């Protein structure tokens, strides 16, 4: 009997699997995976929120959204590289980061507003394919422009900008003992930023008159207009806010060694953001938050398993798309979506 087992290619895998399973369920491991997952979720939610706000209200699938995140990463990184020196202390670095958030948000929101007025608005009445082609064209232009500018200054467009990453405060680069495990300061910072972003967006959507207009317009923009809401102005504001949010996520990524400021960041962030928005249900912020958490936690879990059981790190990203396929088959409108949203 044991000879049969020895011939099986899976024979050695069973005890390995049991050992790994035991290791996974240790409190220290579970807590670490949880923190990793929530930190990833925070980033996904920040990137996807702008995308979902824009789609929910305007029915526009903005393929240029990832490029806004990439531009935000470079712009914020530039600001921090210019201001932060080797001697700069952590409090000042954090202050510069805060300033960077404000500057990146303002610049990209203004850019997004102009884009909506100048390019998107004239094609609202055309088929969705026109909007997809336009925003896809935009992302090609922005990425190529970024490649030219970055190369001009002697940086590698496809590599993470190390100078920007080096502006990170020491406290974020260190491990900190928390409850049962040692966790990265950067991950805790990303979680804090994600929570802050969710609270700010939630307050905007549910506690302000403009947020009410956004939610009403997301369901039925024609009816909202007939009740006196200037839907076109709301479109512009939402496109500006969505673009600004994408940029703010970028400045945070400039510090993260898993991402970093680089030209391919546009595509690297666009794909998971789309997955999160689709899983959550196109156009629902609540769905985006739930899907971001789901994807982040599954991604972190699979990353741990692939690293510890198979010692292969390339596949975990595939699991995100696997979740997408399952959700699309079981619940095509997404976790919190209705059957038809958007439009104008």
């Amino acid at each position, binding site marked *: 009997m044991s000879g049969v087992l020895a011939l099986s290619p899976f024979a050695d895998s069973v005890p390995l699997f049991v050992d790994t399973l035991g290791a996974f369920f240790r409190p220290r491991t579970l807590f670490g995976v949880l923190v990793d997952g929530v930190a990833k979720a925070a980033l996904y939610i920040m990137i996807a929120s702008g995308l979902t706000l824009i789609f929910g209200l305007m029915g526009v699938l903005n393929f240029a959204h990832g490029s806004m995140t990439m531009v935000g990463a470079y712009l914020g990184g530039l600001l921090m590289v210019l201001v932060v020196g080797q001697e700069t202390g952590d409090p000042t670095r954090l202050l510069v980061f805060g300033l960077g958030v404000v500057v990146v948000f303002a610049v990209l929101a203004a850019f997004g507003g102009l884009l909506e007025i100048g390019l998107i608005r004239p094609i609202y009445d055309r088929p969705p394919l026109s909007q997809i082609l336009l925003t896809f064209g935009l992302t090609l232009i922005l990425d190529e422009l970024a490649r030219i500018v970055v190369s001009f200054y002697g940086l590698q467009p496809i590599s993470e900008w190390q100078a920007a990453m080096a502006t990170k405060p020491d406290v974020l680069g260190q491990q900190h003992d928390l409850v049962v495990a040692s966790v990265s300061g950067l991950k805790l910072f990303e979680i804090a930023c994600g929570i802050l972003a969710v609270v700010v967006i939630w307050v905007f959507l549910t506690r302000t*008159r403009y947020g*009410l*207009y956004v*939610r*009403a317009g997301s*369901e*039925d923009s*024609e*009816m*909202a*207009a*007939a*009740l*006196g*809401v*200037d*839907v*076109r102005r709301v479109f512009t504001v939402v496109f500006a806010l969505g673009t600004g949010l994408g940029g703010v996520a970028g400045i945070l990524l400039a510090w993260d060694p898993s991402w970093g400021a680089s030209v391919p960041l546009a595509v690297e962030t666009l794909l998971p953001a789309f997955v999160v928005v689709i899983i959550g249900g196109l156009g629902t912020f609540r769905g985006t938050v739930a899907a971001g958490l789901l994807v982040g936690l599954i991604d972190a879990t699979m990353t741990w398993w692939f690293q510890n059981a198979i010692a292969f790190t390339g596949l975990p990203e595939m699991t995100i798309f696997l979740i997408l396929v399952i959700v699309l088959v079981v619940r095509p409108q997404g976790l919190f979506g*209705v059957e038809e949203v958007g439009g104008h």
Partner: protein
Amino acid sequence: MSLLSLEAVHTYYGDSHILEGVSLEVDRGEVVALVGRNGVGKTTTLRTILQLTPPSEGQVWLRGEDITGADTHEVADAGVGWIPENRRIFSRLTVEENIHVAVPEGRNIDAARERAYETFPDLREHRHRDAGTLSGGQQQMLAIVRGLVGDNDLLLVDEPSEGLAPLIVSAVADALAATATETTVLLVEQNLPLALDLADRFYVLDDGQVVDSGDTNEVDDDDERFRRYLSA
């Protein structure tokens, strides 16, 4: 000067010619019924007034001012309210938020809410519920109060009794009758007895054209003038 006036209005959906030279007038304080079979252009007339489907030819005048081609929100801001066919409430917003959207900026929201709940007390106890979870009758009540709280000079009401139980139709009719004492109403209604009961005047629409009009006290719902155009 009429509060609302349509002058030889032609409206298309794509290549389909829906309104073929519609002219009508609504004076301040009146309730005017627009009746006709399904698909003759009644809803399109209301959409044309709101500029949701702007006319290709002809003019729409509000208080003597040409509003043809204006933005829909500008028409609403000018005091034109809409209670649409099929309710079109915002299902993911609460009852209170639905009312809130309809209150113009700068107006007293608390007073508007009280007015809504006085009109349909049923809505008060459901005020924190998502509107999509209400019954059909409650959704219609919400659609009506949304039109009322805008303090509009002119209310465009489209098939308010459609698909409702008789008891709810009666409550809706009472609310519209009360509204009509202070607001001008242009009413599209398939329920002819209800329309004639509420309205002072009527227009009959057939194939995108006004084919008859008059005072409602000159006719009853079995009149030959209606049978010719309203029977299937």
